[in-house]
């Protein structure tokens, strides 16, 4: 039996980023770290991805913004955030003392929005990587960069040219062939692929003949979507040679191990944070034993080892 010190939990993303472990928390499900620092030692995570920021403050969608469905929930928050200025002045200083890598999630309405934000964030200390949110389903009027390989790859190319920071492209499952989009993002210079964002969905109150969400449509997340997320990780991991970060319905160490053996190099825990703010760190504590069960001495040894 190997001791804890012999299990190597590190994950390499691109040439410059080494995550201390594969347990990350998904954008939009962990606030800006101030909130979660009350509950857990956020600095022990493999990486922290704050709520997506946009060029300007957005109030977000009108309520209701979330509704629970079978083993999951719909959300249509609408990228409620303080904008990049608010992020840099009010939120970033609270991340700097944390030991874990900070991966900033950005979204815009045009490639130029992404490029401008990337330039500004690249000048700030303490940011380890960027995650390009190409796929928020809840913002009307914007271009959905993640649904067509050419638009997606052009955007990644432009951002790539604007920064040395490692880039992760977060993809939507609401496409006919997610592997094509992932391959296009890799060719354009992405260092990792995050899959999946939420599934476009709807809930209805038939008695009132009304949709449940203020925004009508929203994104489905939670344990209900895990099989879809695993399928996407499987397809994407076969299509690209850069690391895949698995997201979708992860709520236990078993879920994490399923994603790793299917091809994810790391995972992000999302909706489950809402029902247990301590979950991500408890899963991290359980990880060495689960790896040991497979006779592995590192995370890398089990990634993509489906037989």
């Amino acid at each position, binding site marked *: 039996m190997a001791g804890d010190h012999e299990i190597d939990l590190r994950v390499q993303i691109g040439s410059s980023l080494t995550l201390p472990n594969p347990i990350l928390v998904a954008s939009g*499900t962990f606030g800006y770290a101030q909130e979660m620092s009350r509950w857990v030692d956020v600095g022990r995570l493999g990486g922290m991805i704050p709520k997506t920021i946009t060029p300007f403050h957005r109030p977000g969608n009108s309520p209701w913004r979330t509704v629970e469905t079978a083993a*999951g929930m719909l959300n249509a*928050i609408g990228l409620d955030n303080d904008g990049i200025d608010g992020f840099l002045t009010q939120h970033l200083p609270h991340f700097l003392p944390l030991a874990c890598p900070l991966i900033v999630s950005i979204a815009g309405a045009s490639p130029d929005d992404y490029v401008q934000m990337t330039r500004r964030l690249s000048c700030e200390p303490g940011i380890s990587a960027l995650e390009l949110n190409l796929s928020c389903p809840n913002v009307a009027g914007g271009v959905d960069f993640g649904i067509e390989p050419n638009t997606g790859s052009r955007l990644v190319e432009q951002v790539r040219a604007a920064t040395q920071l490692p880039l992760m492209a977060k993809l939507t499952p609401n496409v006919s062939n997610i592997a094509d989009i992932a391959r296009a993002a890799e060719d354009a210079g992405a260092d990792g692929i995050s899959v999946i964002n939420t599934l476009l969905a709807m809930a209805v109150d038939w008695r009132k003949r009304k949709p449940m969400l203020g925004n009508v449509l929203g994104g489905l997340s939670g344990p209900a979507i895990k099989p879809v997320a695993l399928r996407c990780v499987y397809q994407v991991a076969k299509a690209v040679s850069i690391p895949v970060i698995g997201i979708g319905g992860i709520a236990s160490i078993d879920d994490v191990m399923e994603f790793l053996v299917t091809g994810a190099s790391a995972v992000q825990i999302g909706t489950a944070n809402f029902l*247990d*703010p301590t979950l991500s760190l408890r899963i991290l504590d359980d990880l060495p034993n689960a790896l040991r069960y497979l006779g592995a001495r590192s995370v890398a040894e089990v990634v993509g080892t489906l037989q």
Partner: protein
Amino acid sequence: MAELSSCPGYHYRAAQVVQQVSLGKDTYRLRIQCPQIARAIRVGQFVMVRVHGLQDPLLGRAFAIYDTDEDCLDIAYLVHGKMTHQFELLRPGDQVDIWGPLGNGFSMAPTDHLVMVAGGIGQTPFLAMAQHYLGRRRYGAAEMPADAEPLANRVTLCYGARNAEYFAGLDDFRTAAVELRLTTDDGSLGEKGLVTDALQRVLDENTRADGLRVCACGPERMLASVCELVRSHNLNTDRRIPLEVSLETPMACGIGICFSCVAKIRQLDGSWDYRRTCIEGPVFCGEAIVWD
């Protein structure tokens, strides 16, 4: 039952159900053993509770504290949806996941006459509030001093329900020496009418210029009416009766990370912004809330 959160003051636990008793039609009082939260929680704060181990229903639900003792806390709930139907099945020894204490709570400023206004299941934070104000109990970390002065001389509960069956916990309020002003939609108990009618009468009866405070909890439309009533009463009588409102906005996490539970709150510059009721509320100054 291991303490799972690592930071002082905030607790996430799998905790045992101790007791479940009926309070009224479809309404129960659920006693949960959780000393850490029971001893720390203040009036108007809340906890999130879910049935341990279930993925459907998935998310916690927010509950005000009905009462506490050394080791346990009580929530009162109306059977209404998926989670509360599961709650109804809970028996002593079953486990729930509970996290808290959450939210800001009421300001608990001393006053001569405290008026609490509740609609539906909105009475749940007010038993603790009344006991605290009348000097019968102290909630939160503070010890009950032997010579505790009451924070109010009188406490009135204006409480509206659909009909007599739905009133929950009336005996608890009577035992706490709370003056009750009940209203029902059908007149089956108390006055027939709206709870705001009862509030109007209390405000009209008490003509002292100061020494009155109003706190309200209940359905959104009722709360909007209470805000309007107090605002126009203050305007017409030149009084400055303070009003605090506890919002029941649906929440997913209760801890400020999901941005679901927003309400329109007036900012210092007069504009409004969506603010999270879980961490900036659930109690807001009545004047700050922008009603649609």
